């Protein structure tokens, strides 16, 4: 049984069908890359899995450990071990980096997690998670905090966006560390080279999965841009 199973999920806002009969599964302790260009519905899918307010499937179901979770609230799903790092991490006034990494477990030593994300603990622990951090710093802190949580499923929404090429190594280290901790990872990205670190990959196009399999196969298909040229016939026609 997969850890996460998305069965025929659609999500419609007014007349706009953002996700359409989408199917995807993520296995226990698997890194699964979800590849797709801008506006294909990646973040929407992440919000539906995490259970953000206003995001409930208009059709289909989401199972976690075999249990339907798609009507549960976000904190109920978090208690089951589902967490997510937003594409644009949120800022907080008056919360230090140290506090942020130990919100749930106050006894935890946050330093090793910052180091893993490429940040020197001595320089960051007393900083605030507010507007004084750069986008890249804030993003790394978010990744460190997710790693520290040891979730069963971590959804990373474009963890590589806003991160320079030289620092990609740190992002990849965090994802690998999550996997070593036994977490499953849904790795959302629009860069095929990031998808290559995954165990499996799927490509999303216009709200549906158009290709799944080994990262190499999916990345090659993604790179060929076949799906993008399939215009009105619908992406499914372009399946390899």
């Amino acid at each position, binding site marked *: 049984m997969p850890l996460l199973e998305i069965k025929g999920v659609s999500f419609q806002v007014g007349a706009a069908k953002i996700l359409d009969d989408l199917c995807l599964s993520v296995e226990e302790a698997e890194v699964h890359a979800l590849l797709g260009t801008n506006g294909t519905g990646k973040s929407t899918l992440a919000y539906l899995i995490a259970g953000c*307010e206003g995001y409930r499937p208009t059709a289909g179901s989401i199972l976690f450990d075999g249990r339907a979770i798609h009507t549960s609230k976000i*904190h109920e799903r*978090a208690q089951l071990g589902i967490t997510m790092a*937003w594409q644009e991490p949120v800022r907080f*006034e*008056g919360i230090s980096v140290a506090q942020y990494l130990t*919100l*749930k477990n106050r006894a935890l030593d946050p330093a090793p997690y910052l180091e893993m994300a490429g940040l020197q603990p001595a320089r960051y622990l007393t900083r605030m998670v507010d507007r004084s951090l750069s986008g890249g710093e804030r993003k790394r802190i978010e990744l460190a905090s997710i790693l520290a949580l040891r979730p069963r499923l971590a959804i990373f929404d474009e963890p590589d966006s806003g991160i320079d090429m030289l620092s990609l190594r740190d992002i990849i280290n965090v994802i690998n560390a999550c996997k070593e901790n036994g977490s499953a990872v849904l790795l959302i990205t629009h860069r095929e080279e990031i998808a290559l670190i995954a165990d499996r990959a799927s490509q999303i196009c216009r709200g549906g999965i158009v290709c799944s399999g080994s990262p190499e196969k999916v990345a090659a298909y993604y790179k060929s841009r076949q799906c993008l040229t399939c215009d009105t016939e619908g992406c499914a026609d372009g399946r390899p």
Partner: protein
Amino acid sequence: MDALEQLMQAFGNTGGDRAVLADSSTAHLVADGHTILSSRAIEGVEVEAQETPSGISATVRVRQGVRLTNPVHLCFGVLHKKGTQNISMDVRLEKNASVSFIAHCIFPDAEQVIHTMDAVIAIEDGAEMHYSETHFHGLHGGVEAIPKAVVSVGKNGGYLGEFTLVTGRVGRLAIDYDVEAQENAVVELTARVFGHGNDTIQIKEKVVLAGENARGLIKTRVAVEDEASAEITGITEGNAAGARGHVDCMEIVKDNGVASAIPIVRVTNSLAKVTHEAAIGSVDKRQMETLMLHGLTPEEAVDVIVKGILR
């Protein structure tokens, strides 16, 4: 136990450091109601306080060029359940002086206490003052506190004022601060208040940027829950070339709380600039969701966010 000991105990309970009163290198003034319990002047700092028919009248002078490393401690309280405390303060920092004040206003058992403070603060050219005032009004909501201050900041001077009332009840609070800044002066006013029950909070802070390149920031962080209400008025005037002002108000409303913010910005010189931002309402949804994704319950998440902004 005498009044000083009782007040010091309350002072310690609200985070004050009792040892400072015994320290001969630290100036202080301690009063219970209209009784002065203790005061100390030090080299370069005159502290004079008298009991008058209507209350307490105190004068603090910091001599020219004196730059104190130890803060001056002020502790005002009413230990009884009922009482009145009227304080008038006259503070002058002579040229290039620099001093920090740490003030505690403590009314631990107040059921019907009125506390008024009328301060006139003159900061001469090049002088800098940091004034941090923390209030504790007990748990009954029986305090009416009316702090007023008129502050003038000379050329190249600085005034940093902080007001904090985040533990226990507020009762009724009406702050009225008025600051005028001359050339190159820097003014920062910060207030943090948490209202509960039927507390009412009124904060009016005004900064007039009168001199060229004067800078001002009014920052207000308020949370109201239960039936509490808050009305925050932040006024900044830019009246000289290069003056820069900003009004930043954030209020979180829970339960049946009511909050309003009135930013007033006025510019009379085309080379001055004043901006404002206000965020009033329930806790930010994205922040809530982020904390819940980190394993907190909705209640814990609200608590962390509110504590954060009041910190």
